[in-house]
């Protein structure tokens, strides 16, 4: 034994230390707290399928991501490595599509906005051939459609019209109307001007049938103009929608010195674009609201937050039809929202106390179905913040 002294010594220390560490790790419940959903009033069944995503930050750039539902709290570091690794890159909706249509989804890049799933097809559109080197681009639409019944897919490519003029083209939504694929994109010109456009494709003929500009800032001549056109979020980017809603805002920064620049002119618009008829409708929304107040759009209705009120605005009628009361305590933005069928879930956070409120409303009647608090079981340490940023219904 003495002959192997060094080996035995080193090996024992390694084995003992690592086993002690890993055993201790499995015994203790982990250093992250449980987060509970506590009922304040209403029907608890309403939050059974609710999943809240958040991030637990320890300060110093450390922390973990967490998913909370009525039964358990799961931190991403507690998941086994293959699961963590596989799910990290794509979001839940893309993962779902990849699980179900493994062969079709293979090799398809782009965000969840590049996909559409209906009862009959899964459609995909992305712009490839882009690079940071603007002179080296060959922008092309990469399209594919999978027929769910026959399990056959067609794919084709179409060059982007006028591609030399653009520095970047990003797909923002894919829809299908009457067997034609409608692709909504954000196009940024080399000059910096941006626009939202719609391209139509016939996938049986495998060609492009039309292009239109939905809205743009292409006429801006002044250099000191900041423009932003944003598409409003929807509960599931892979589902069909009737309208696509955009905000558009610009501000002109006056000449002045560097420290004394002021905004001399600004404006904002809300545009609802109806895909089937290629119609644009200006929405008259309360002037006090800005982009951050817009929460979500679904099936012809826009949901906005005005202070402690949740407003439901009907696009076809052009008016606010309902007002729902949110809790007094929640103040800040963002306000995560989820919609399923006829219910809307709203999370309002109180940053000071790390406690959030969840309110569930019935969309037909506007009644409050459930009200609850989401908070860590034990008070959090100083320097620790818990931010809940996403709601989803499973």
């Amino acid at each position, binding site marked *: 034994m003495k*002959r*192997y*002294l*060094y*080996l035995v010594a*080193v*090996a024992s*220390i*390694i084995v003992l*230390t*690592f086993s002690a*560490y*890993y055993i201790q*790790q499995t015994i*203790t419940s*982990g*250093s992250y707290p449980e987060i509970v959903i506590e009922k304040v009033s209403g029907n608890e069944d309403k939050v059974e399928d609710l999943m809240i995503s958040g991030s637990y930050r*320890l*300060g*110093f750039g*450390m922390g*973990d991501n967490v998913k909370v539902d009525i039964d358990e709290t799961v931190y991403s*570091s507690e998941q*086994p*490595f*293959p699961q963590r*690794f*596989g799910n*990290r*890159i794509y979001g839940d909706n893309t993962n779902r599509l*990849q699980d179900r249509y493994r062969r079709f989804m*293979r*090799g*398809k*890049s782009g965000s969840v906005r590049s996909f559409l799933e209906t009862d009959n097809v899964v459609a995909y559109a992305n712009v*490839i*051939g882009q690079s940071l080197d603007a002179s080296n681009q060959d922008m092309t639409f*990469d399209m594919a459609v999978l027929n769910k019944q026959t399990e056959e897919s067609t794919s084709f490519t179409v060059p982007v019209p006028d591609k030399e003029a653009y520095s970047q083209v990003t797909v923002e939504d894919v829809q299908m109307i009457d067997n034609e694929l409608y692709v909504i994109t954000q196009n940024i010109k080399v000059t910096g001007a941006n626009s939202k456009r719609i391209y139509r494709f016939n996938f049986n003929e495998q060609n492009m049938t039309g292009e239109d500009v939905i809205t743009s800032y292409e006429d801006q001549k002044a250099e000191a103009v900041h423009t932003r056109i944003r598409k409003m979020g929807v509960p599931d980017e892979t589902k069909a929608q009737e309208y696509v809603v955009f905000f558009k805002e610009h501000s002109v920064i006056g000449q002045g010195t560097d420290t004394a620049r002021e905004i001399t002119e600004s404006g904002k618009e809300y545009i609802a674009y109806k895909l089937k008829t290629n119609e644009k409708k200006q929405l008259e929304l309360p002037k006090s609201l800005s982009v951050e107040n817009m929460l979500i759009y679904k099936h012809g209705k826009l949901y906005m937050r005005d202070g402690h009120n949740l407003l439901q605005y009907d696009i076809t009628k052009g008016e606010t039809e309902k007002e729902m009361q949110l809790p007094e305590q929640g103040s800040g933005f963002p306000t995560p929202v989820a919609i399923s069928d006829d219910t809307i879930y709203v999370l309002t956070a109180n940053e000071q106390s790390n406690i959030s409120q969840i309110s569930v409303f019935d969309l037909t009647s506007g009644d409050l179905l459930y009200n609850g608090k989401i908070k860590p079981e034990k008070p959090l*340490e*100083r*320097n*620790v913040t818990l931010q809940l940023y996403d709601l989803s219904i499973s």
Partner: protein
Amino acid sequence: MNRFVKLLNFELSRFMKIYLVLIALTIIVQVVGVIVTANSYMAEANKMIYEEGLSQAQFIQQYRSMSFLRFARSLWFMGPIAVCAAALLFYIFMIWYRDWFGKNTFIYRLLMLPTARINVYLAKAASIVLMVLGLVSVQLIILPLENSVLKWLVPIDFRSDMTVEQVVGWDYLSILIPQTFTEFILYYGAGFMAVSVLFTAILFERSFKWKGILLGIGFVAISGVIMLSPLLATVFMDHYYLYPLETLGLEVVLGLLVTAVSLWMGHYLLTKKITV
């Protein structure tokens, strides 16, 4: 097997003096570092509160409370780790080259041993791996100690306490002390692959001298390209046809392939081509 174990023990014993110095250095510098960091923080606090008139809450808001990470990010903590890493990296080469020094070159006796020559190779590789793990174990042992010293020196009001798991979950520490068994195999397996590639490159040099250096560098480069091939594919192709877990599986297979080739090549060089 017996010979392998004896050789392994022998390799460990040869380096043991320096190894113990490295361990002592780490412990001493880190413990001193904890004390210095904690005391300088408290000195700053005392100055701000008693001389400049800040309240306790104001001080904590401006200067942030003391946490273990403040120490872990400092040179006191990272310095010894860097020194140990550099020393072991250097020894990956020296573990071979020291056998060629002097008049009665030791390698001659090593190669004349009545044992498969691959055992010499494997003993050296295994000793490097064990030494890395040993240093990591030492760090794992002194971490709770350092945490306790910090808690002892800084009053509770000024502290944000962290558990050892939280500290270990940070940055490069989470690679050295992986959270799951799968990651342990992946990271240390990759480390063993790197060591074997370097060993084979060294043996190229020892077998063919100047030509050998070129062959060695070429071998390392080819291994690198093979391991990076999935990444290179994404740069050159429009579509990348593998899902993340499949890419991981592919990398594991490529890694095993590179390791096997390195070991086989090393064995071939040791038995047929080496010059003493």
